[in-house]
């Protein structure tokens, strides 16, 4: 690629330093564009960003709330890490999240008399994971059996499950006597324990444990090796005996389970009732988180906390400076695009074209 007298030459190896630098450039660029967006509202950029930061980290409570917001994002981000490492484009985390939430709700509503304590909570979360895995499996089957484009199938499934939820919330699951499409509030025993007298619930620690488990799975096990090999070169993998279809299925099950766990955690740890709007696009944001975190669990956790901070801080920002909360959604997209572009810096270096005599 040439621009004038400069051209790009492929780097022979990429150091940590360059990778970190590129992420910083991406963030700087993104916040720069964000500043432009803020200016369209007439608010002061400095005040807006300060309010954003204060809302996210300004106090003990604020910080804990940031962690609360990051919890589902860590899990959906991990779900994408597992899938994308195999180059399986599971865009259905949103739907799998809802599947998990619905299963958690069902267990909460029907089994709260039969089970108690940790057993009930375990049942809630396991059901959530199973539901997410099953919802993902439908798309996996379409891909494996019919070679259907998994992106489109998973996106369609995201819409379909919302209609299913809508039906349930209007009929059998509707809170008796309520206008709203929501379930009744669940019994206290179905609640995940909270910590530090804040809203931080067990789900956050589940997410951290999941990070460790995903790391171990992907880099320390044979299955993880297969997943990565299929992502890097499916042809060679097949030539050496790796079953591609089985790998796709396994990856979708794990990915769906993680997204389902995110949904279950939100229900049992935070919302305690099922509604249509329990997700603010966690499934889709998970994609950005995974890419920002360079498909690595540590990076995902950090990126999730960063985005959690944005979401948490934005309400404070709207109250104090009037900048709409919707800025955060734009920022997320902008960060992703800048990150993708700055990725080029890690792959190439800029060189002057030598003049031919």
């Amino acid at each position, binding site marked *: 690629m040439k621009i004038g007298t400069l051209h790009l*030459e492929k780097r*022979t190896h990429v150091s940590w330093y360059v990778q970190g630098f590129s992420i910083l450039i991406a963030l700087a660029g993104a916040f720069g564009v964000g500043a432009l967006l803020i200016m369209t509202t007439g608010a002061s950029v400095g005040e807006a960003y300060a309010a954003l930061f204060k809302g996210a980290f300004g106090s003990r409570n604020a910080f804990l709330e940031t962690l609360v917001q990051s919890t589902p994002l860590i899990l959906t981000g991990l779900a994408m890490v597992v899938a994308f490492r195999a180059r399986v484009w599971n865009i259905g985390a949103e739907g799998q999240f809802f599947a998990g939430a619905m299963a958690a709700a069902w267990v909460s509503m029907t089994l709260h008399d039969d089970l108690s304590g940790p057993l009930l909570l375990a049942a809630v979360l396991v059901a959530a994971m199973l539901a997410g895995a099953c919802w993902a499996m439908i798309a996996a089957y379409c891909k494996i059996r019919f070679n259907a484009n998994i992106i489109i199938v998973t996106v369609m499934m995201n819409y379909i499950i919302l209609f299913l939820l809508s039906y349930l919330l209007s009929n059998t699951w509707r809170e008796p006597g309520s206008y709203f499409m929501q379930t009744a509030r669940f019994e206290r025993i179905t609640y995940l324990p909270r910590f530090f007298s804040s809203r931080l619930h067990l789900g956050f620690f589940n997410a951290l444990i999941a990070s460790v488990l995903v790391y171990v799975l992907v880099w320390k096990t044979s299955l993880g090796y297969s997943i990565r090999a299929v992502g*890097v070169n499916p042809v*060679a993998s097949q*030539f050496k005996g790796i079953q591609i279809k089985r790998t796709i299925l396994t990856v979708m099950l794990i990915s769906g389970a993680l997204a389902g766990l995110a949904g279950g955690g939100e229900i049992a740890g935070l919302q305690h009732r099922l509604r249509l709007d329990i997700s603010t696009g966690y499934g889709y944001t998970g994609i950005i988180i995974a890419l920002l975190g360079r498909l690595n669990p540590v990076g995902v956790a950090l990126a999730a906390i960063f985005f959690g901070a944005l979401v948490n801080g934005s309400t404070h920002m709207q109250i104090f400076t009037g900048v709409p909360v919707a800025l955060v959604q734009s920022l997320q997209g902008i960060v992703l695009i800048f990150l993708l572009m700055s990725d080029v810096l890690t792959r190439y270096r800029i060189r002057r074209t030598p003049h031919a*005599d």
Partner: protein
Amino acid sequence: MTNPNPRDTGRAEQGSALSGAPDTGCEKEVSSILLRVDDLSKRFGAVQANDHVSFEVRKGEIHCLLGENGAGKSTMAECLYGTYQPDGGSIYFKGRQIRLTSPRDAINLGIGMVHQHFVLVPPMNVIENIIIGTQKKGLFLRTEEAEKKIQRLCDEYGIDLDIHAPIKELSVSQQQWTEILKALYVGVDLLILDEPTAVLTPQEIMALFRTVKKMAEQGLSVILITHKFSEVLEVSDRITVLRKGKLIGTVETRSINDRELARMMVGRDVIFRVEKEEVKPGELVLELDGVTLRNSQKMKKLDNIHLQIRRHEILGLAGVGGNGQRSLYNAIIGISPLDEGRILLCEEDLAKKSVADRMMACLAGIPEDRIKQGLLMDFSVKESLLLGRHNRPPFSRFGWLCKKKIREFAERSIANYEIAVQNGDVRTGTLSGGNLQKVILARELAHDPCCVVASQPTRGLDVGAIEYVHRRLLDLRREGAGILLISEDLDELFNLSDRLAVIYKGRIMGVFDVNDVTREKVGLLMAGISE
């Protein structure tokens, strides 16, 4: 520059001085030099592909660029065609210095190129492929005129081609003629052919050379790029030899022999015939019994194949690419299930065995495309070596990877196979072709296979690496393995094989003892002509 009649350009300008020529570096008769390359250099990252190379091409001359794989011939060609821009040096064409920024410039000047890997559009037909980028005026496609002109060119040069057929239905040699027609259609004064004979039968090679000589007689200059010096001596007027990017020299063909040429090419004496010991073949290792394979359109890719390979034996399989070699490899390895017939490994039917099982059972495969089918370029060498054995002891216990064993295996492989890397943590993508092939050998041969299927194992390798691979194959043969050697290189096949089979359109045309058959006969069988 649309030149409807390439013949006229050459004849008309031959013998007359060109005007406005700033090319003062030329001492010979200026008028007869069509192309002069002066001190050209090109670097890719750490590799100096061309290092101050100079040579010249006369009008109506067939000039060969000879060098082993990696010598820089293709890079030079791409610099002459405008795909790459040289870092240093200059190019003079028809007496004027030229600077090519893209193939468009080259085409406008009258330079055409037939690439080693064809650049054709499979779903479109021959006419459409030829006219891309040629119609300068008008929005509407005017195919009728083009059709007539192409047909005229075919008749003139004796090219037998259905120009309405889509590319994917043409044979390899017909596709190559399409590539050549692309250049003739726009009219060229200089035609560059990059390794044109790699994929042809001996008869097709002769037909190509006949046509090339005819073009040269009519004034067209041809640069023929190759690593096969036997062909070079047959068809060229002069030869420029490159080695590791540097110019070794330019010689007149009639004043040199193949031994001297090989020494120029490689820098030392090259052993033409490997020392193949006399070994008695042992028991049967691999047997294909009536193997038939169909593709999704129910056409037979393999048709009733019967082959037997014994221990201590190399069975060579000759054939033009695309006649079933890939299907055969895939069938033996286990990727493609058979429609009919059986494959027996050491007397055991492989029907129920997966790819992984077959590897366990002492079968090894060296794939045709080492990068796409064999290696994980973004992984470390250590991890590439692990592929296929990543879920078995000793590298994996209860699903857990044993880092120590993996590292040890990498260290052993690097030492045994002389792989030129510091350690196993280097990224696989940084290795050269020869070293990549060594990684594959290290991985595949680690478990002492009794049967090895090697598909084009020396394609794209330099002479040193080729010798290494040949030595290893002969070692395997001596130690008791049975080897199926699938290759498009007849020299290699005649050198290494004990017996030789020929495949054509999925059928075995014959199996012979290598001493009982001639190249000509093999060539005919490769083209499907049996007596």
